[in-house]
């Protein structure tokens, strides 16, 4: 993966496949950036959890070759740049994946296009609510897909018109994080 936003999309899609109805995503940017994806999905037993970090394991039965690189690649990329990686799971309760990266490490992955990731998640997976919090220094934004659904008066965020409104809103919020103070 070329950046963290792609890893986040990948891991959050694991949550959706684990039948989560709520996924919390947190990014806290700094010299040491921390990331968290927490879901209320079906969780994993000890055996599955151990295997989740083995690239020669997948729960996807449609795969001919038994390979699953999502979590192993993320862990590799995190450890490559002196970060810490942690996954916890309770069967029936959910799973959380947390990691940090030392952003001064030359090989550390940039955050990337997080707007796109949040937009895809919020508009593609209607049965799941996403909460996205992004902090950078003193700035903080928070976007809740449940609130967007209520404000827009529809659960169908994938409707083309609604989807564009959601996209613009996410972009606007992210601009608060990325831009210098408006002059």
């Amino acid at each position, binding site marked *: 993966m070329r950046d963290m936003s792609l890893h986040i999309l990948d891991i959050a899609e694991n949550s959706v496949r684990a039948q989560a109805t709520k996924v919390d995503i947190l990014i806290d940017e700094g010299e040491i950036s921390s990331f968290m994806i927490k879901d209320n999905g079906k969780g994993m037993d000890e055996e599955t959890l151990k295997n989740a970090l083995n690239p020669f394991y997948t729960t996807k039965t449609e795969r001919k*070759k038994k390979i699953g690189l999502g979590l192993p690649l993320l862990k590799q990329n995190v450890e490559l740049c002196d970060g810490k990686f942690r996954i916890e799971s309770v069967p029936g309760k959910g799973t959380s994946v947390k990691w940090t990266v030392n952003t001064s490490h030359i090989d550390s992955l940039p955050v990337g296009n997080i707007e796109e990731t949040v937009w895809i998640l919020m508009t593609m997976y209607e049965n799941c609510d996403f909460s996205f919090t992004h902090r950078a220094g003193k700035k903080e934004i928070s976007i809740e897909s449940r609130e967007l659904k209520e404000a827009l008066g529809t659960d169908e965020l994938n409707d083309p018109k609604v989807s564009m409104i959601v996209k613009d809103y996410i972009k606007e919020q992210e601009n608060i994080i990325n831009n210098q103070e408006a002059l």
Partner: protein
Amino acid sequence: MKVSQIKEKLNLEYVVQSDNEAVSGYASDLLSVVMGKVKPQSVWLTVQTHKNIVAVAKMADISAIVICDGFSPDDDTVEAAQKENIPILKTDKGVFEIAGMLYESGIR
């Protein structure tokens, strides 16, 4: 061309010995890019040493992994490659030089 022939021509060292037919080549260290771009039956040049390279090689039908610039694969990488029957070779030469030699030898 056989991986064993490439090994002789380019003076590479076997870490995990196995033989395959190779028809193409690829060089990159970003595993997700390799998965998306590499052609089947390629020789893959990289400096990555993590176990994940074996999973990528298996998934993408890669014929052999050549670890360049004097790096050595991790122990669990070697173990996985033996189990999956994927040849790993190493060399002190850099990716650029090995790619040039491969190209010269007829792997395009």
